[in-house]
């Protein structure tokens, strides 16, 4: 066991993954500087500049080249510097990465991982605070994974690299250094598709992922004091997501609150709500609440706090669900 931040747990996972010669890491500034968040710190030195590759500034090129490598039998890990810079690569992701298996009926596949730091909360510049996971969840042929703890960061990243299909691996920027925890040494995986029960509870189910898990947990702790028992589920994986765990919980509690930072309209929260009501409508004792970012650009530093869901906003929604 080692006491690691999310960032260091990821470094550890990358280092382990790179032991396989089929794995390479490529992206802007991943080598010389170890990436803007230092997640790949030391890896170029350890594995060489042919395996930890600093690329020109071209996201479509990074993803497209990684895709080609994957088709030729490798397991590349592409890094996009921030979610807001991932959009130039969307054509590659939608039209090629997610499709080559179907297009060739399993003849060619794209087992690559695309790592993308995402999310708000650190008062960054424009484009550096975005949560576009909903877009990725809507694209056929991808898996989408979001860790929220050092343990899961390592285990899910190793699972993503081992996966035979493309995985979009979203790293909550705000958590890189916000938490430390014990992480097993050496290789292990966390299965993609299984949610994590963060706190058990009886009255309301709160579903969150990424940086919102901690806010949900804090809200639950606060509400426990005033006698409301909140169950918090960390999805960990959005595609596929653990419908069973969520539905089972809501069947018990009869109430649900979904939390994400992304804009509200057609956010992934809508999918969770639509699925819950499909399976558990008759258990619902109140409308399912969504606590989300707004349909706006993430405000810059001075006004960002009006945008990002907080424990207070989550608690307010839980209270409303209790009254609903």
């Amino acid at each position, binding site marked *: 066991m080692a006491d690691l931040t999310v960032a260091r747990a990821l470094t550890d996972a990358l280092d382990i993954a790179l032991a396989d*010669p089929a794995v*390479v890491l490529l992206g802007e500034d991943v080598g010389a500087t170890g990436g803007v968040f230092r997640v790949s710190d030391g890896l170029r030195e350890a594995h060489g500049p*042919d*395996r930890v*590759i600093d*690329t*020109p500034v*071209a996201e*479509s*090129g990074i993803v*497209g*080249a*990684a*895709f*080609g*490598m*994957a*088709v*030729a*039998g*490798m397991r*590349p890990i592409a890094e996009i510097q921030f979610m807001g810079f991932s959009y*130039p690569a969307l*054509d*590659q992701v939608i*039209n*090629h990465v997610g499709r*080559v*298996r*179907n*297009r*060739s*009926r*399993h*003849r*060619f*596949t794209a087992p690559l991982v695309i790592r993308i730091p995402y999310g708000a909360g650190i008062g960054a510049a424009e484009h550096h605070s975005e949560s576009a996971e909903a877009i990725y969840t809507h694209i*056929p*042929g991808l*898996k989408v994974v979001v860790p929220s703890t050092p343990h899961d960061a390592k285990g899910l990243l190793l699972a993503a690299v081992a996966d*035979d*299909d493309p995985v979009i691996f979203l790293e909550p920027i705000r958590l890189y250094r916000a938490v430390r925890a014990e992480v097993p040494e050496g290789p292990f995986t966390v299965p993609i*598709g299984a949610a994590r029960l963060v706190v058990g509870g009886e009255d309301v189910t709160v579903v969150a992922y990424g940086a919102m898990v901690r806010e949900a947990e804090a809200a639950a702790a606060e509400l426990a004091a005033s006698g409301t028992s909140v169950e918090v589920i960390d999805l960990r994986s959005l*595609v*596929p*997501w653990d*419908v069973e765990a969520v539905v089972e919980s809501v069947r018990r509690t009869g109430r649900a609150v979904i939390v994400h930072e992304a804009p509200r309209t057609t956010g992934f929260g809508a999918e969770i709500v639509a699925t819950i009501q499909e399976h558990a409508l008759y258990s619902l004792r109140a409308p399912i609440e969504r606590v989300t970012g707004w349909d706006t650009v993430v405000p810059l530093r001075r006004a960002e706090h009006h945008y990002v869901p907080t424990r207070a906003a989550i608690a307010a929604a839980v209270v409303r669900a209790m009254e609903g």
Partner: protein
Amino acid sequence: MSAEPQQLLAPDGTLHGDLPLPLGEISRLYRAMVVARVFDGKCSAMQRQGRLATYAPYEGQEAAQIGAASALEASDWLVASYRDAAAMALRGYPWSNLILGRTGDERGGHAPEGVRVLPPSITVGGHMIHAVGIAWAERLKGTDAVALTMFGDGATSEGDFHEAMNFAAVFATPTVFFCQNNGWAISLPTSRQTAAETIADKAVGYGMTGLVVDGNDVLAVHEAVRRAVSTARAGEGPTLIEALTYRIGPHTTTDDPGRYRDPAEVESWRERDPLRRVRRFLETQGAWDEDAQAAAEHDAGLEAEAAVAAAEMVAALDGDEIFSAMYAVPTIHLEEQRARLRRDGR
């Protein structure tokens, strides 16, 4: 920047300089061109009969495609577009797959194991970088395999062309960029696609070698590509080759070129037919004659019939199967959707 396009065989069949390939090889290339032309005619006809969903004819571009594809080894990769069936077939992609794909069946994209040819790219521009990644992977794996990508003049305007060229040059990947400049991108003439004198000029901005070849001269194309392939294989980096050719037919079978181009232009290019000049040359060498031609056409016809029959024998995917190749193993969501389709039908 522009120089005369490299040419070995004049339109009248005269050879400039030495024989670049043994005569037997040239006959083999010519035969492949005959096969390609027969298939192209067959497919256009099938499309008119409603048996193909869509079809992009390549008549007039056989020399470019066959010349380039014939310069690759079995271990090399081909990453090509919707109009490159002749090249793909020469690399071992079965004609029956090419036809099956065009009937509207994903299984057309399943080339046999060992055939290193990707399914044709339908989007313009996105596939060139794949040839960079593939070539790069081969180098990282320590093989000497090369990847060749084929694309049109229109594709050179997409941002992805730029990123592919730049990555290939910066990382010196063993990639060959083969542009068939066939004069048009649907209704846009090359002169409105770029203000550069040649597409080969674009290589300069990447520190890459660029050259222009007569795309209707199968020998010149073969030679140029062969050299670029061996440069790449030797680890000396990528090359951009512009093959000047012409799309004799419509863009696809639903296009009406009468709206945008002068029939006289088409006629002038028919004069430069890529098959005719090889045949003339082979005939002057005593390596070809009427009988050989008749036999080649006959064989090609039989091959086409057989490929069409094989493709049309395949039963359509059933509802269950549309879910089965999105992932190695369908997700729970896809399984649930599959059950839904079974229950409600469509």
